[in-house]
C-alpha cells in the first residue's frame, strides 16, 4: 500500500522553481502535470530546501513563501528557517 507524501503546486514561475528544487533534492520523487497544476509524490518523505529554490529563482526565497504557490498536500509538516519537510510518521 502506498505511503506517499504529496505536494501540489500552481504552475507559475515560482511553482516551477519549487518543483525543480524538489525534484533535484528528493531522489525518487515523481512529477505529474495537470492543467495549471504540478503534483509531486514521493514515498514517506519530501524536503523543500530554501537554498535550492533561491538558486533557481535568483533571489532569497523563504520557505514560508510556499503558501503563495501551494494547492494541496498530503503528510505531516515540519517547518524551520531553511526548509519545509513533508513526512508520514
Amino acid at each position, binding site marked *: 500500500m502506498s505511503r506517499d507524501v504529496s505536494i501540489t503546486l500552481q504552475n507559475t514561475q515560482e511553482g516551477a522553481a519549487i518543483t525543480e528544487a524538489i525534484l533535484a533534492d528528493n531522489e525518487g520523487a515523481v512529477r505529474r502535470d495537470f492543467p495549471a497544476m504540478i503534483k509531486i509524490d514521493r514515498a514517506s518523505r519530501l524536503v523543500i530546501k530554501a537554498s535550492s529554490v533561491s538558486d533557481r529563482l535568483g533571489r532569497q526565497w523563504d520557505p514560508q513563501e510556499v503558501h503563495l504557490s501551494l494547492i494541496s498536500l498530503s503528510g505531516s509538516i515540519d*517547518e524551520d528557517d531553511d526548509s519545509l519537510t513533508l513526512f508520514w510518521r
Partner: protein
Amino acid sequence: MNAKKLTLKQKYIQSTRGLDWEYSYHSKEEIFPYAEYEGIKIHDWDAWEDPFKLTMDSYWRFQAEKERKLYAVIDSVAQNSGQLGVTDARYFNAVKLFIQGVTPLEYQAHRHFAHLARHLPGAGLRVAAQMQSIDELRHAQTQIHTISHYNKFFDGMHDFAHMHDRLWYLSVPKSFFDDATSAGPFEFMTAISFAFEYVLTNLLFVPFMSGAAFNGDLATVTFGFSAQSDESRHMTLGLEAVRFMLEQDEANVPIVQRWLDKWFWRGYRLLSLVGMMMDYMLPKKIMSWAEAWEMYYEEAGGALFADLARYGIREPKYAGVAKAEKDHLTHQVWTVFYNYTHAAALHTWDIDDQHMDWLSEKYPNSFDRIYRPRYLAWRKQAAEGKRFYNNGLPQLCQVCQIPMAFTEPGDPSTVSFRVSEYAGDKFHTCSDGCKDIFDYEPEKYVQAWLPVHQIFQGNCGGATIPEVLDWYHLKEGVDNLDYAGSPEQAMWNNWMVGRRGSDNLDTKTAAK
C-alpha cells in the same frame, strides 16, 4: 553586542504561547464551557505542536499578496469578457450550484472558526482557528466577487444566500454545516477540518476547479487555487487535530471513530451533488465521478488510514457502500434534478448521444442497462412537447435531506428505504449510514427543517408551486426549467454567432 536572531520555531513560540496566561479570576471550566461535554479528554494542551509556524505578520503579508494576484485576474476576466471563452453556457450551471451551495458554507465556516478561536482551550489551536476564520471569510468574499461578473449575464445566481436557506436541494449543504456547527468543538474539527477538508477535500476541489480549467473559466480556476493555498493549512490542522485527540487519551478513540464514520458518510452524501455536476454539467469532462472516487478516496485514503491504524482507527464504516454505489450515484442524482428542474435555480437538459457514449464508456456496468433507456425515453417525451417534470414532491432523507433516490447496493431497481421509530413518530432515511446517524442522536435530527414538509405546513409562501417559487425568489421561466428554451440559451447562441460562427449553435428546440 548583536542580539541573536530567533529561529522560526522560537519566534513562533514567543508570538503565540508567550501571550497566553493562567486564569485566576474564573475557573477554566467557566471560561471554556465547551471543552469537556463531548467526552474528549485532553490532558496536556501544551503538547499541541502547530504544524505551520505562521505568525500574524507573515499571514497578513502572504494573504495580501494572494488577494492582489486574484483581484487582478478577476478584473482581467471582466474586462476581456471571459465568459465568452467558456466551452458552453451549460457549464454555468456548475457555477450556480457552487455559489448557491458552497459559498454560504464558507461563510458558515468563517463564523464557526471565529467561535472556535474563542472556545478552544489551547493557544496554538486558537491561533490556527483565528486564521482559518479569516481565510474562510476571504473565500466567501472572493467567490462572490468572481461570480458577480457571471451574474450580470447568467441566471440563478442573483439571490444565492436567500436561496441557500430555502431551496430543497440547498438544504443538503446547509443541513450538513448546521449539523457541524451545532456540535461541539472536537466533533466540528473532526467533521470539517479532518473529514471534509482533509479526507474528502479533493472530491470537492478537483471537480469544480479542474472542471473550470477544462471549460475555459479562468476566474473560477484562479479563486480555486487562491482558496486551496489556504486549504493546505486547514487540512494540516485537521490531520494534526485528529492525531492530537487520539494521542491524548485512549478513551478518545471510539468517540473519534464514531465521528469519522458519521462525517465520512455525511460528506460523501453531500458530494453526490458534486459528482452529478462532474458527470453531467461539464461540457468538457475531466474524469468520471467513479474515477475521481477511486483516485482521491480509495487510493489516497489507503496511506492515511494506514497511518491512523496505530491508534486503533479503522476505515469509515460505510466506505464499502460508497464504493458499491460508484456506478449509480451520479445518475440517480441527475435523475432527481431532472425531475425537479421546475423548482430549481439551475437548468438540466436532455443528454445527447455523444454524452451518452462517454457515460457508457465510463460506466460499463450500469449506464446502458439502466440509465440510457431512461434518458432516451425522456428525450422522446421532450421532443413530443411533453418534457417530464415530476408534479409531486420528493420524499427526503431525515438526515442528509437528499430526495431518497439512492438504491440498495447490489439492486439498482429498489430504492433504499430505512425507517426509525422515535417518540411515537417515524423518521425515514436513505441508507444505513444516515439511519445510524439518526439513531445515535435522534433529538438533533427530529428538528430538521425539511423543505418538503415545510411546504406542506404552509411555511414556504403558500400552497401552490408558483407561490413557493416566489418565496424562493426564483424567477419562473428564467432561473428554472430545461436549458432548452431558456433565456440563457438564447443569449448564448446569439453570442456564439458573433464569436465562433453558426456551426457552434445549440439548436435544440424549446420543450416546456
